[in-house]
């Protein structure tokens, strides 16, 4: 199984002897290229065109994060899976307002249902959040009544606001209060973790989109602006609650990350190196964790589950099978 290679150290990465070679001040190592699915680069890494051309040939994506851990951008090699048919279908479903709304709705459905399954877990563990569960269920009744994607985005935002109210009661730690959702810059520890986790999720989905026939620039819920990636934001909505939020609860619950792991900077509240590595490592563990898939009748990793989700979208666009978002059962 191919792996995501996370690079935190500073150094030079290059092609050498038909594979990848990474050199830092005190260490040299080979990274067998056939084992790499993509790179997440956090350190100050030097690379050249020869490396990029090798990476493109091997169809590997590279995601760059800046000094503060914020997502900078991706090296998304030229599309290798080209299906004019699929691009036309993807556009057709974007341009037709009803068809677009229909898919966007399913992203919101998947998103809120997965929020509910996170809440359900904590309700069963005695957390007093039933009122939030109830409010989300009430609001979800508005979803089918939307007739534009903007309205849908509005409902989605309202649901998310209510959902975040549960965080303080679940985490129950005065160092990690939610206050309000703040990004660019995140104004407190918890928001900083949410932003970091979400950006990992976005790029992971982007990497999976690269391995399908879908174009990441054509999303349905988030407005396409034709240059930026948006389909990955759409699909991430489904997985954020069950991957990112659960990860944050577990890191805080087990006291693996505390307030000492943050520093304030011009760019807001950011995770220090040690915590960032730990966060990424735990994220990777989660992506590799497997669950039993009912239709396939075998275990699949969460990472694979993202791919399956994209396949379902492709089949929807083909007119073969209506898309129904993944909903976690626990």
């Amino acid at each position, binding site marked *: 199984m*191919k792996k995501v290679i996370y690079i935190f150290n500073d150094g030079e990465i290059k092609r050498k002897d038909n594979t990848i070679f990474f050199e830092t001040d005190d260490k040299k190592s080979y990274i067998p290229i056939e084992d790499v699915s993509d790179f997440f680069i956090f350190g100050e890494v030097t690379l050249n065109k020869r490396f990029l051309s090798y990476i493109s040939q091997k169809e590997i994506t590279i995601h760059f994060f800046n000094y503060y851990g914020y997502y900078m951008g991706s090296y998304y090699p030229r599309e290798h899976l080209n299906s*004019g048919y699929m691009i036309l279908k993807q556009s057709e479903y974007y341009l037709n307002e009803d068809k677009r709304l229909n898919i966007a709705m399913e992203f919101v459905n998947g998103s809120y249902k997965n929020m509910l399954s996170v809440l359900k877990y904590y309700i069963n563990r005695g957390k007093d959040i039933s009122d939030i569960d109830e409010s989300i269920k009430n609001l979800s009744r508005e979803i089918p009544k939307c007739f534009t994607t903007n309205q849908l985005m509005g409902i989605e935002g309202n649901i998310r606001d209510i959902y975040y109210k549960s965080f303080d009661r679940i985490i129950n730690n005065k160092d990690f209060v939610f206050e309000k959702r703040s990004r660019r810059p995140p104004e407190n520890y918890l928001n900083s973790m949410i932003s970091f986790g979400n950006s990992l999720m976005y790029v992971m989905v982007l990497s999976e989109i690269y*391995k399908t026939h879908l174009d990441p620039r054509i999303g349905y819920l988030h407005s396409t602006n034709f240059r930026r990636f948006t389909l990955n934001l759409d699909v991430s909505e489904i997985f954020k609650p069950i991957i990112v939020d659960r990860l944050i609860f577990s890191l805080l619950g087990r006291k693996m990350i505390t307030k000492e792991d943050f520093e304030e900077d011009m760019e807001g509240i950011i995770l220090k190196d040690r915590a960032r590595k730990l966060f990424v490592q735990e994220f990777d563990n989660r992506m590799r964790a497997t669950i039993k898939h009912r*239709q396939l009748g075998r275990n699949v990793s969460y990472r694979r589950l993202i791919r*399956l989700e994209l396949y379902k979208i492709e089949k929807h666009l083909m007119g073969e099978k209506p898309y129904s978002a993944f909903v976690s059962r626990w």
Partner: protein
Amino acid sequence: MEDIKINGTLVWYYYICKREVWLMSRKIVADQDNKFMDIGRFIHENSYGREKKEISIGNIKVDVLKRHKGNVLVGEVKKSSKFQESAKMQLAYYLYKLKEYGIDGEGILMFPKERKRIEIKLNDKIIADIKDMEKKILNIIYKDIPQEPKKIKYCKNCAYSEFCWS
């Protein structure tokens, strides 16, 4: 859907899975991470290096093409002889297409892993079968949606299986 043409790959899949024919015709290729895809690629890249490879003639692409005792010999390389019928028809289709261009050739199926070769020649019966098959393949391709997935024994190792069953 104007420029869909039958090619050797579609013939090959026709005898294995009709749904796959439709998907292939739309360039919806299978999961490239599948380990069997890797094995296939490896065999393709590393076998018969001394002979001419991958020759395109019209919309067909043959693995190996050479002269042999004054005849044109077309070779098709396969991982195993498990899908022999499929491979035979694919190669016969190439010979049939060459014949249209006025070239009479002979075919040879090659299974490097099994060190096995099978000779193929066109005859009236095979030509009739090919004509019939062409019609049936076009019939599949011109449909708006693919045939529903059906669980068959090939699904087990198929690189499309996650696509079909997700």
